[in-house]
């Protein structure tokens, strides 16, 4: 007996139960003489379970269903204000589709990803899921979402307005799985008051790593004369993908090759870039030590004692709420390979097990329409996924120069991820932690993690070729 035979296949199980469910639903509908032939609810369900292309055969969009439909929507929100904002984003859809009840569920931070994965393990993926670039390979290879290609082809849906790099980030094996609501490349947020008080000129568009270090050193000082530093030049994001990748790329290094088949972390350029960031803390001491965590760097920046922090343009909303000082955006400094930004972002995707793919697709389209995304940009919740909505982002200040966010994506390419992203992220975070603590040099670290990274790449290839 081969291992293949022993597999307890969840898909077969789902297929059978869903098929049976659809049969029951279908005969019940027939009994009621409701002539439900056009209803996507009863026709699409078995298809969705059988193939990845639920509507490939259809040539034109079926008439919108009139019968009551309930869509579950799992989404991000860290605050009550944010939750209200997202509810508002769905208001237009509710008006247009009065027969569809949208049931949102909001979760913050990593809890959201864990919740979606846990729901998926129970076979109940919500109809609309949060499709972040970092999880795309991992989730699509595990068949958690529906490919949008059949819908796009059938409706002749125009993707040209979406940035091609973010569409790439939300695609798996060349097929788009999510419509982007926001995206962005890292920018430097800087505390203008601190720069002014210290007499340091603001960053220019063509500043280099050396300029960055010099500015950070000038900003780092002892303001009350007790012999201890109490103001710092810069604070890093502790996460590898958020805090290190643009430095690595701008130095000519990388973490995986462009085909995403091999880990290439152990190059001198990569090690040099990681060491540069670590030295800001360990050697030059212009970066205060912060605890490991997704929000630690931002919290230190909001204390008003740190001059610069790097993250995506989505931080504008929080900066406005939490920074009690004047601030602006600047482009990241140029390394020896130039300015190489990463792009990531998030889209709306359709949960694989949905019973209402048509309504879900309508939801994805409506929530990424020019109007909806313009409202998103005006609220500062993100840099909009559509180019035609990006002007709305420029209307809101601070930052004094919001156009920096647009400039930043020009030099950017999508952040490459793997089907083993979560584990890889964990391994790399632990590794850079050690370099940031000065326990180990980056040159040694990149060698140390290679066996583990190679294993994870092997597993990645197995998953996507399965």
């Amino acid at each position, binding site marked *: 007996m081969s291992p293949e035979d022993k*597999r307890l*296949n969840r898909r077969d199980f789902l297929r059978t139960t869903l098929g049976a469910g659809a049969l029951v639903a279908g005969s019940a509908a027939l009994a009621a003489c409701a002539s439900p032939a056009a209803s996507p609810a009863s026709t699409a369900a078995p298809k969705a379970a059988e193939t990845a292309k639920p509507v490939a055969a259809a040539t034109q969009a079926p008439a919108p269903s009139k019968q009551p439909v309930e869509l579950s929507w799992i989404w991000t929100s860290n605050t009550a204000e944010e939750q209200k904002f997202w509810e508002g984003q769905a208001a237009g859809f509710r008006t247009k589709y009065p027969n569809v009840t949208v049931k949102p569920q909001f979760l913050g931070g990593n809890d959201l990803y864990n919740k979606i994965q846990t729901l998926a393990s129970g076979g109940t993926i919500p109809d609309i899921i949060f499709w972040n670039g970092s999880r795309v390979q991992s989730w699509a290879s*595990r068949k958690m979402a529906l490919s949008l290609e059949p819908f796009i082809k059938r409706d002749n849906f125009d993707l040209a307005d979406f940035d091609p790099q973010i569409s790439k980030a939300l695609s798996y094996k060349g097929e788009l799985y999510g419509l982007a609501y926001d995206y962005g490349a890292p920018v430097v947020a800087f505390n203008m008051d601190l720069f002014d008080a210290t007499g340091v000129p603001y960053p220019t568009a063509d500043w280099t790593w050396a300029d960055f270090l010099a500015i950070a050193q000038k900003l780092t000082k002892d303001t009350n004369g007790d012999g*201890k530093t109490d103001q710092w030049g810069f604070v890093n994001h502790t996460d590898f993908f958020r805090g290190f990748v643009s430095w690595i790329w701008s130095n000519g290094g990388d973490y995986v090759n462009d085909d995403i088949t091999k880990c290439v972390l152990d190059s001198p350029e990569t090690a040099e870039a990681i060491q540069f960031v670590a030295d800001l803390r360990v050697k030059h001491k212009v970066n*205060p*030590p*912060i605890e*490991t965590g997704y929000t630690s760097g931002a919290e230190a920046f909001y204390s008003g004692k740190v001059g610069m922090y790097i993250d995506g343009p989505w931080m504008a909303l929080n900066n406005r709420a939490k920074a009690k000082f004047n601030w602006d955006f600047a482009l990241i400094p140029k390394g020896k390979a130039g300015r190489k930004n990463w792009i990531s972002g998030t889209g709306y995707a359709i949960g694989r097990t949905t019973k209402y793919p048509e309504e879900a697709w309508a939801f994805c389209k409506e929530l990424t329409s020019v109007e909806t995304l313009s409202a998103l940009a005006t609220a500062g919740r993100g840099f909009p996924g559509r180019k035609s909505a990006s002007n709305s982002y420029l209307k809101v200040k601070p930052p004094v120069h919001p156009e920096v966010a647009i400039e930043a994506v020009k030099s950017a390419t999508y952040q490459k991820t793997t089907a083993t992203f979560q584990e890889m992220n964990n391994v790399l975070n632990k590794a850079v932690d050690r370099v940031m603590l000065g326990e180990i040099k980056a040159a040694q670290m990149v060698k140390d993690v290679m066996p583990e990274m190679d294993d994870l790449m092997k597993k990645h290839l197995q998953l996507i070729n*399965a």
Partner: protein
Amino acid sequence: MATPSLTTSPDMAVAQEHRGRRRGRETRAALLFLMPNIIGFVVFTSLPVLAAFVLSFLDWDFMLGANFVGLDNYRQLIFQDRTFHKVLGNTAFYVVLNVAGNISLALLLALALNRKMRGVLVYRTVFFLPVVSTMVAVAVVWRWMYSTEFGLINFFLDMFGLAKVPWLTSTEYPMLAIIIMSIWKGVGYNMVIFLAGLQGIPTHLYEAASIDGAGGWRKFWSITLPMLSPTTFFVVVMAVIHSFQVFDQAMIMTEGGPADATNTIVLYIYQTGFQFFKMGYAAAIAWFLFALIFIFTIVQWRLQGEWVHYE
């Protein structure tokens, strides 16, 4: 013998049967009342635990089907997984210091608050307050307090001319920081149990000891400690079981970092299962933890004869 024995008297037999039937009815009634709990335990605890045992022999991705791998998960866990070994060490460190610190402090507090004085209820409430606060909220606040450059604790250390401690920003101190916080959070619970234990010690023992000329110290060693030992036993067993399962603090304050310095067994189970899609492996770790706690509890149970005195 002409006189029939009592038990065979027809009257008595009826009465006994009656009593037996009543006892049967009572048992059924008791079972009925217990049913909600029993069902809850079976459905939400026993079955998942058994399912986890089966899972621990599988390589299950939870989306893509499962392979039977025999003892591979356990083999990897015990012989190869360096992260697990580190996590095991971290947890052991936590268990030892947290149990020792919590129990000795709880006993001291209970002794201090077990007398008539002004405001004793206020003190008891204050020490118990952290117990009823949510761990998540508490951990978030302590995380701010522990901040190396921006935190309250280092601010005070600095004010008194002491060196700042990299509480959460080094590999040496974070576990200690978590232990200190956990003791603060949990000490009130054991304090209350100790208080109850102390109040159960008959006062005549102390009176008799006083008459015999025993001092306070002597009374503590010869009366309080031995009389309190059943309470202490309960507290130690429970504290060990709880400490092995440390999770929230590490998850919220440091996400197990930096560099796994605060990663614990349960946090690692969570990461492995729900983040890395390795459900089978996570189940194996969970069963390893179960075995560990089980062995510790059995050993403690066996040892209680050596030091626990029941009246």
